[in-house]
């Protein structure tokens, strides 16, 4: 095979890769479009009469917290304001070295109580359990450091209710978030897990710990992430849900059937992608058993989170996510191609392997190939241009379809120029951001392959939503 043949083969390979990737994403788009339209038709006509409200099952909201002294009090206050029939808040202090626990004890009037702890799922030693004298539905577990998954397992062990909701300490919910995300469990008793859309909180206004006004962030980096999240959730997740092939429920906000998760063995503690790994394992467990189940997605924007506004922090996050993806997929290969695994094992899993796991490597190699090929005169300027326009154009198209889905569904961003800004971000994303992201993901892949120990690292929070909780009035100060 001559070098010209090799170059031609590689060119065709990269061209086909982008075409196939874009086609599959567009099909996911179509699936999401149909699902979201149907869902919005129910919502727009207020389908269920008033008598159907108040039937929601009770939920334990698990809040794993490690060194969250700055934000934990505000987070708990926001959770206390949720409008839901019956729920409890269970904060799991995971070996914090700052004064997270002390702040909780002081603010919420906590007293120790005898735990009679059920150690069904593996976790580090529980040091003490506290209940609030002022808020009967709030408790705190204090334990040895074990990581987020470990903290969640401890919380699941101690949870009182049949459903639990996993949430990050800095997640911001809306008053009816729990009410919305629990609906799949009411609609279909086979439901074992449900996720919701996570949006970017940067630039929005939060009062008393709840989101009251949605705004786009000012910074370009955060604005680009808004578009990314829209893509990832509106069709990246919603597209798979109708086929019961949703492989990820974000750890930022998801609700699970406690009994089923215990049956599956809880969260794995040796991975940074514990959220995805659990969902994959639930699929594997129920599919291989041939037991009916459903893992689904609620397209409502139910949870808001702060996106990194610094490159260093963003890099750490993306490297960690790719590691988590790698660890989750490789430890659940039993789902791939199993004769009972259905769409989850025969379509979704290979898709994730090829386009999400290996995809960044193929993209980076593609960029490397065309740039060095051009530099050495092997590829023409037109070939270089064609490749880049293809890479940029396909992502732009996908971003715009996400904006279309956003407009036909929740049109969250109401400002006059909001869509214009998002469109500009969708274009800008492809002029460096996406490429750097691919490099970070390749680093994550490399570290996973080398077996470098996983760690969460520290998220530097800018807290650009303007709130502090006044301890006397417990009202926000803008």
């Amino acid at each position, binding site marked *: 095979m001559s070098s010209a043949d090799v170059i031609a083969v590689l060119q065709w390979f990269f061209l086909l890769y982008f075409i196939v990737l874009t086609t599959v994403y567009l099909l996911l788009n179509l699936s999401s479009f149909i699902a979201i339209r149907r869902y919005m038709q129910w919502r727009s*006509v207020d389908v269920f009469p008033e008598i159907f409200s108040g039937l929601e099952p009770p939920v334990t909201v698990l809040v794993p917290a490690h060194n969250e002294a700055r934000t934990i009090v505000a987070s708990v206050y926001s959770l206390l304001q949720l409008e839901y029939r019956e729920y409890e808040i269970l904060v799991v202090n995971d070996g914090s070295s700052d004064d997270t626990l002390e702040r909780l004890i002081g603010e919420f009037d906590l007293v120790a109580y005898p735990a009679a702890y059920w150690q069904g799922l593996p976790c580090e030693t529980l040091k003490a359990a506290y209940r609030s004298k002022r808020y009967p539905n709030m408790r705190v577990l204090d334990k040895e450091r074990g990581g987020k998954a470990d903290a969640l397992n401890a919380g699941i062990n101690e949870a009182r209710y049949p459903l639990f909701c996993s949430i990050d300490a800095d997640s911001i919910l809306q008053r009816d978030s729990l009410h919305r995300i629990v609906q799949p469990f009411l609609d279909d008793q086979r439901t074992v897990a449900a996720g919701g859309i996570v949006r970017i909180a940067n630039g929005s206004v939060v009062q008393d710990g709840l989101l009251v006004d949605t705004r786009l962030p000012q910074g370009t980096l955060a604005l680009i992430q808004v578009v990314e999240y829209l893509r990832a959730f509106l069709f990246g997740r919603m597209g798979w849900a109708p086929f019961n092939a949703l492989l990820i429920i974000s750890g930022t906000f998801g609700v699970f059937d406690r009994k089923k998760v215990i049956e599956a063995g809880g969260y794995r503690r040796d991975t940074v992608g514990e959220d995805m790994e659990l969902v994959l394992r639930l699929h594997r467990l129920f599919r291989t058993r041939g037991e009916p189940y459903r893992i689904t997605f609620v397209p409502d924007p139910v949870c808001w989170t702060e996106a990194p506004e610094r490159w260093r922090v963003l890099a750490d996050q993306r490297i960690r996510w790719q590691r988590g993806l790698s660890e989750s997929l490789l430890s659940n290969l039993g789902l791939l191609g199993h004769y009972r695994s259905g769409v989850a094992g025969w379509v979704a899993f290979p898709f994730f392997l090829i386009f999400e796991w290996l995809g960044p490597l193929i993209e980076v190699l593609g960029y490397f190939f065309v740039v060095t090929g051009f530099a050495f005169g092997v590829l023409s300027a037109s070939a270089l241009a064609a490749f880049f326009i293809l890479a940029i154009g396909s992502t732009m198209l996908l971003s715009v379809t996400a904006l279309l889905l956003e407009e036909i569904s929740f049109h969250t961003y109401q400002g006059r120029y909001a869509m214009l800004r998002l469109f500009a971000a969708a274009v800008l994303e492809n002029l460096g951001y996406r490429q750097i992201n691919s490099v970070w993901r390749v680093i994550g892949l490399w570290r996973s392959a080398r077996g470098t120990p996983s760690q969460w690292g520290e998220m530097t929070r800018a807290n650009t939503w303007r709130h502090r909780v006044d301890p006397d009035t417990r009202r926000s100060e803008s």
Partner: protein
Amino acid sequence: MTLPLTDPMLRLAFFIDLLLLIVAVLLWFEVMVLQSLRRYRERLDEESREYWRPLMVKALIESAKQRPPVILRRERMALLILWNRLHESVRGASIENLNRLGREADLDKLALRLLRSRRLKWRLLAIRTLGNLRERDAWSGLRKELYASQPTSVLAARALLQIDPEAALPSLIPLLCERDDWPVAQVGSFLREDEHGPLVCRHLEKALREAPAKYLPRLLRYVRSLDCADMTATLNRLLDTHNNPNIVVPCLRAFNDPVARTRVRGYLEHANWVVRMQAVATLGRLAEPEDERYLRECLADPNWWVRYRAAEALVDLPFAARDKLRRLAAEHPDKFARDMLARALAHAASV
């Protein structure tokens, strides 16, 4: 070696690039157009609601003295949603007045037409409206919707029950068994509506006697949801003939007559811990003072969950003296029992 633009691969790549960019730009324009249309529709809907709300609120209090205005096409959605919401938030004479207003505004004819619409949202609205109007002319159309997917079928079931419960139930009861996509909690709530509960319970009792075993767990969930009275004999018969925990547990859960306590106590030592746990929970709910000692014995059960339920049940007993329970938590010979009771007492103290 460089590839010229005449190369077919390059030409294909550029063609695809152009197509992608054109489609992306067109889609973006579509987004802007949809946004403008949506804002226009929202304004119209708000105007419709502002116009019709006072008329409907007035109709709740008194019969209309003149015929209501004609409904404009663009007002239909907002009007139907508003009318149904109001309808489901009032009782008694207000419902009759609202129904009268609805018929005078030809909502019944509109809803009958919309029941045949191809658009899901119109059909859903139509079903809900026809049920609230108790519109008999919709009977056959609604019966067809019983076999549609969720939520259409659930709404149709509710509508039929609202129109004529005696005629609807023979069709609905088999569906309660077969439709495992019907959410029990929601269906149970409309089965209880308008005081249909006792009638539904009679039909459920008949179904429990005649249905195959595989449908019993689901039927029993409805029995529990409706808190059916006079089921004790039927539940006892089921327990006499079934040993499967999938049937025993829902039977125990469905007991609501203190007369059943003796039967329930017989399951406190069952081999299956889920059965024991449910027996404890049910006994706690129905308990008389002499049952307290049985619950105390369950505090020493080898299974954590049985002990947990026993502790919760004891603490919730209205006649159990807290001092006595605190002493028990301090002095019980079984350490696990002491821990569990102390925990339950601590939780009760915080509520």
